[in-house]
């Protein structure tokens, strides 16, 4: 099984996780910028966080043979704090970085006017920087949030094929399917979405435009739930090729639209990949 986890917050995970992920077939990850549990209060905190997403974290991932890319944005929760609004002026500079493959996570948390503005402005940045967009949907009032999200995406003029609407479930999948956007599913230990429910959704809606992620972060979560979903697919009669499509080829196709997804030299992912040639990318 080869896996690109299209949404995982590795900054919050340990090296043990990297080791288990690499052993289980995770070869690449995309880490979206989001909140950190503790709210931030100034743009400098975000600059350091964004720097880490294009600096230290890819280096850490490389120690385990895992390729790391990022998405950058002011997230909807913190968009509500006026002290963090200037982050919107920092974001464009990071959108120019080689390893940034989308604008995200953007979207709604509590559906405030502040979130409206940050969402709209950052969708426009995605268009301007020719990047896809990763859209978070609220965990409360989700159905309404998804509907409003799709309205905003439509009005923005971005190609729906360059947008993934994430954290979907049985109730919200159909509207996103019909919109032409990609459908993201975050598999959690015991809430939101499980491997067996994911298999049922794949049976009903097919494998097109589907991304499956662990969304693992600092909360109760499991970075191997992508693998568990692949196993559940096989147990339910899906083929190895189906699993490869959902867990590898689909995310490669989606983020590949950035023109910046670099999966070169990942054929043989020994434990010392890059660690054994520390000057790679240097002189």
């Amino acid at each position: 099984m080869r896996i690109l986890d299209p949404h995982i917050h590795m900054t919050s995970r340990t090296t043990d996780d990297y080791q288990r992920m690499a052993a289980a077939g995770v070869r690449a990850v995309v880490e979206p910028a989001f909140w950190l549990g503790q709210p931030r209060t100034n743009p400098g905190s975000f600059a350091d966080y964004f720097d880490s997403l294009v600096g230290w974290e890819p280096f850490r991932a490389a120690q385990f043979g895992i390729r790391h890319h990022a998405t950058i944005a002011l997230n909807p929760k913190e968009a509500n704090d006026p002290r963090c609004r200037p982050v919107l002026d920092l974001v464009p500079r990071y959108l120019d970085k080689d390893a940034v493959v989308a604008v995200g996570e953007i979207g709604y948390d509590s559906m405030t006017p502040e979130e409206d503005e940050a969402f709209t402005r950052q969708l426009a940045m995605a268009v301007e920087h020719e990047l896809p967009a990763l859209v978070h949907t609220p965990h409360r009032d989700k159905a309404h949030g998804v509907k409003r999200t799709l309205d905003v995406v439509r009005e923005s003029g971005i190609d729906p094929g360059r947008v993934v609407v994430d954290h979907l479930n049985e109730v919200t999948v159909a509207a996103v399917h019909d919109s032409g956007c990609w459908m993201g599913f975050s598999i959690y230990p015991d809430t939101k979405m499980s491997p067996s429910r994911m298999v049922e959704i794949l049976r009903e809606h097919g494998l097109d435009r589907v991304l499956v992620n662990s969304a693992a972060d600092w909360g109760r979560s499991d970075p191997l739930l992508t693998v568990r979903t692949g196993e559940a697919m096989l147990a339910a009669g899906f083929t190895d090729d189906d699993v490869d499509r959902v867990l590898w080829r689909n995310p490669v196709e989606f983020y590949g639209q950035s023109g910046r997804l670099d999966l070169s030299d990942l054929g043989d992912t020994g434990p010392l990949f890059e660690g054994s040639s520390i000057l790679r990318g240097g002189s």
Partner: protein
Amino acid sequence: MGGDVVEDNAWLADAVARVGADPAAIVRAFAAAGRHCDDAAAARARLLRALPPDVLPYWIDDLYRHGDTNEKLAILTALPGLPLGAEAVPLLHDAIRTNDTRLLAAALGPYAGRLDQHAWRHAVLKCVFLAVPLEVVSDLDRRADRELTAMVAALRAEREAAGRRLPDDAYRLLDPIP
């Protein structure tokens, strides 16, 4: 690295011209160089050389502070070829503070001649500690001194107490300094 990287690449030639006319144009060009040029580090060095010398220290600092790892590496390796005094020494301190072995290695090229001896010794010791090959250190044999030897010997003692060894190339630093 000569100016000839420009000749084969229209994107780079245009970017160099724009940076010469408006230094702030280097921000986006510097970040995007890897997507337009086969040798991104050489292209980035060429862009830095296109900056007017009086604003070079400002932009070196800005680009480094906001750079991803490859941008930072390109700056560190370009430093010896740029018309700079000691203005970029704080960038070396920053690179040496990280635990990213690529940045540490790149900080110890010829421009590290401007590091004071204390900072330089600690950077070399950090290379030994992180197993960065000592061949990356410019001027190592001339600059190594008794104090560095003593620091490496102390690290060897700690390692040996734990049943471990220093990287093979570190043992040469234990030879007596004439």
